[in-house]
């Protein structure tokens, strides 16, 4: 039992220390970008207290905006204080799924930059089935989800096919397919099939109520069943990787493609099925985003879910449950950043600095090891770098 804990602690140490360092350094950014702090530069004592209170207020707001805000409980009961946490989960849900799409590819030695495009195709598929057809509630949700997953799986599988058949590098192909998806959604939202009646700006009709994912905590919260789907998906990815033959083949190809080929594993079949599965996961993210919180397809539906997914997967060390935690962290930062900006004078953009610093430190374990004088810091740099070599 002790061994398990040691293992968890060992693999969580680097992300945790990176996290700590990122917050520490961002503190300086917050302090030195604040007008009130800069005014006191001449008086060291006053400067330090102002700087500390500014940074403290910012991080307090970040916490209140992402986990629990006591100000919200007045008149609504204690549970209402957790509204920010529910928002964190809503934001994290699509990120978990796109993060898994990148993490799974890492495990198989592939670098999936295309989660963005796959996400968009998932959203398009789910939206179309959601607003165009009428079914009974449970069936409608299921069919809309399936439509999104299938669209995106085909889109992702295409990358695998191109790589397996022609040797086209998946990084290039997925980047290009992101552009195609981005412009495809712009075009499709101009067609009469998708464009909302009496509107000329790119927006599709809302999905019908029967296709919307049910809310989990009443109408006051946006928390929807998507998080359950995302958690099941994370478990599914773990199960595939660790308990099935195909998952073993994924990992074998990821560890050493040539050795896997010698051992009789069809690398091209693994490449195609990995990419299709990654596409399916990212597409599920898009579908959940549309059916759970947005309801209407817009041209910017993809946001930056596909790109943040790469960071999330890196932070989660390409492990399913690590990815879930990393996505929750990113969801918390994004949601909390909103409160930080509106409660204090600290701009929302600081959140991007924090995110970037976390990645920077994760990617340079030697630096973290040096700063904290830690030995035996486990890294998986080899795994995450492999995608580039193809």
């Amino acid at each position, binding site marked *: 039992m002790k061994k398990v804990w040691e293992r968890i602690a060992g693999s969580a140490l680097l992300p945790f220390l990176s996290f700590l360092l990122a917050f520490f350094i961002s503190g300086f950014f917050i302090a030195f970008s604040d007008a009130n702090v800069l005014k006191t530069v001449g008086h060291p004592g006053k400067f330090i207290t102002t700087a500390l209170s500014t940074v403290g207020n910012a991080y307090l707001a970040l916490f209140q905006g992402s986990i629990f805000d006591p100000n919200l409980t007045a008149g609504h009961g204690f549970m209402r204080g957790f509204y920010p946490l529910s928002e964190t989960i809503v934001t994290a849900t699509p990120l978990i799924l796109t993060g898994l799409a990148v993490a799974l590819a890492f495990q198989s030695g592939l670098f999936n930059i295309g989660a963005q495009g796959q996400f968009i195709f998932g959203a398009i598929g789910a939206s179309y089935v959601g607003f165009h057809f009428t079914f009974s509630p449970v069936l409608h949700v299921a069919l809309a989800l399936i439509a999104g997953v299938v669209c995106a799986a085909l889109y992702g599988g295409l990358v695998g096919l191109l790589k397996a058949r022609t040797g086209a590098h998946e990084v290039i192909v997925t980047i290009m397919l992101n552009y195609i998806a981005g412009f495809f959604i712009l075009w499709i939202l101009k067609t009469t099939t998708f464009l909302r009646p009496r509107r000329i700006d790119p927006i599709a009709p809302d999905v019908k109520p029967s296709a919307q994912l049910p809310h989990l905590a009443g109408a006051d919260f946006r928390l929807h069943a998507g998080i359950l789907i995302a958690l099941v998906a994370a478990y599914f990815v773990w199960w595939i990787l660790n308990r099935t033959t195909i998952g073993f083949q994924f990992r074998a190809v990821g560890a050493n493609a040539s050795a896997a080929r010698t051992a009789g594993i069809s690398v091209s079949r693994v490449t195609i099925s990995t990419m299709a599965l990654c596409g399916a996961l990212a597409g599920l993210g898009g579908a959940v985003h549309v059916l759970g919180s947005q309801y209407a397809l*817009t041209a910017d539906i993809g*946001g930056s879910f596909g790109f943040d997914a790469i960071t999330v997967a890196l932070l989660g060390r390409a492990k399913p449950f690590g990815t879930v935690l990393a996505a929750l962290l990113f969801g918390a930062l994004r949601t909390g950043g*909103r409160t930080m900006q*509106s409660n204090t004078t600290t701009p929302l953009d600081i959140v991007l600095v924090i995110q970037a610093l976390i990645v920077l430190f994760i990617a340079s374990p030697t630096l973290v090891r040096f700063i*904290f004088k830690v030995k035996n810091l486990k890294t998986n740099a080899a795994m995450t770098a492999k995608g580039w070599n193809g």
Partner: protein
Amino acid sequence: MKKTLKYLSVVAAVALVTGVAVAPASQAAKIKACVVLDTGGVDDHSFNAGAWAGAQSTSAIADVSYLPSSSAADFAPNIKKFIDQKCNVIIGVGFSISGEIVKAGKANPTIKFAVVDDGAMDCNADYSVCNAVANVKGLTFSTDQAAFQAGYLAAGYSKTGTVATYGGAPYPTVTIFMDGFAKGVAYYNKAKKKNVKVLGWDPAKKTGTFVGDFSNTSKASQLSQGFEQQGADVIMPVAGGLGASTAKQSQQSGKSVTVWVDTDGFYSAPQYGSVLLTTVAKGLGAAVKSVITDVKKGTFTGAPYVGTLANGGVSISPLHDFASKVPSRLQLEVKMIGRQIASGTLKI
């Protein structure tokens, strides 16, 4: 390691303690005015910047704050955040936020809302029936009136007989500029029996040239260059911050001049002042300011506001550097047209 950790924990502890202790003091006299921006950011030198500047100008009577939106998914949570913060008035910038603002307005009748660039009506699913909401004010602008003047000016100024316009995306708030511009050129042609061509917008078919978004600077430069190659020597980009790409192209090639939009570019983008013929200005800031002052005075109503040449909500900016380069007769005609539109004698 121990030492570093110790430092870190001390800093963190002090930060938390002082952070909790120094809570912001509330000012009872001021109202709380909150602005949810559209995508594009507060520094777009154009649309968001104009609305935010208007809000900031009320800082004597209101505590103003804003939240940026990185995509449409941010609209609802941003509005919700401001509702939880007990803002007295919440202003949404951009018509794409309108639906969410109206929804929030109906759910929170005690809070005042406004939307810049949309009528903010409560419509049913297929937009066949729309009703006004008492606590939600729509702020719209008849920018085609001022753009009409700019089109006339451009046609008169053009030496090649070709002018051009393009938009960021085919939104109604964008095409209304292009429409007015093209009609102004047509009016010039009719009055002077000339044949100045307009590239980039066909007012009859309602089709034209668009970047696709409001952030792709390389595409905007490409379009501007293309227009120059087709002989256009006046270009009006209606694409927020992308206008800078066209102005830069004008500056580098010397083959064209740029008509700016939204806020007088001579002041908001002074580095391009030398190539800005004029600006089709939209009084976003003034409209936002009037909403906040009305809420403070208690005179706010949900009645829609429409900015026109007559009420000063839209206007054509002074020619600045071009005052000496544009024939005074043409300048006079442009002014006359403005007066005629304002008084209603000239229908666009």
